[in-house]
């Protein structure tokens, strides 16, 4: 029988890997994918706590997170396509027009 805290530690590991990937990756699509990884890690925490308190609302939260993530992915990838058309690069170091 697995304690809930193991699931929470697994989600902490996934979230930290997502944060590291967000910092280290230079490709704008991979940066976006690491945001999705962080969202998934948080979803696992929600489902774990729903099991802990025997509540349905934790799972409802995950449902809404999924909906927002789907909308975010569609708009974000459209923005990436628009950026690629304008600058013809995917490297985040070269997309620095707003830098002082």
């Amino acid at each position: 029988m697995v304690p809930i805290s193991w699931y929470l530690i697994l989600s902490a590991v996934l979230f930290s890997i997502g944060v590291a990937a967000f910092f280290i990756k230079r490709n704008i699509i991979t940066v976006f994918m690491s945001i999705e990884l962080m969202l998934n890690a948080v979803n696992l925490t929600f489902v774990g706590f729903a099991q802990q308190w025997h509540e349905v609302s934790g799972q409802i939260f995950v449902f809404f997170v999924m909906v927002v993530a789907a909308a975010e992915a569609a708009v974000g990838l459209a923005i990436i396509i628009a950026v690629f058309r304008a600058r013809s690069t995917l490297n985040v170091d070269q997309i620095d027009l707003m830098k002082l």
Partner: protein
Amino acid sequence: MHLALFLIFGALCVAGALNLLLQRHPINSALSLIVVMSSLAVLYLLLGAEFLAAAQVIVYSGAIMVLFTFVIMLLNAGREERTRGSKMAYVIGFPGAAVLLALLADIFITHSGEFHRVHAGEYVVSTAALSGVLFRDLLLPFEVTSILILIAILGAVALARKEH
């Protein structure tokens, strides 16, 4: 049984996430993210969330990751090159993530006595119970998300359209 499934798919999750971090080509990162999301669906099943496990496979590893792989292929994204900025990111990124992990793990381990142990099939939220809450108590937020999706579709089409 439960422990074995948790260990196998938890290890698969962490391996996929590490592979996402270490691969240089975005298509390899995308494929390892699909592995992570599919194994998370199994973990949701172990935690008694059967509807979310199905939704995870259909929405995340189905729809969202197909979108990602399409964009990677459309833009012909190649291997990422190392720049001066990436060295700075290595210096800050790895210690920062390690500190975050240590903090979260410390919190969870010190409070681990307060958490239950999961027995497989002990508390399963059926799709009927989930939809009861979703369509009765939370009908307005649910309908608002449909407007959000509609606006997202329009925004995606408007942003990705070719300028004339």
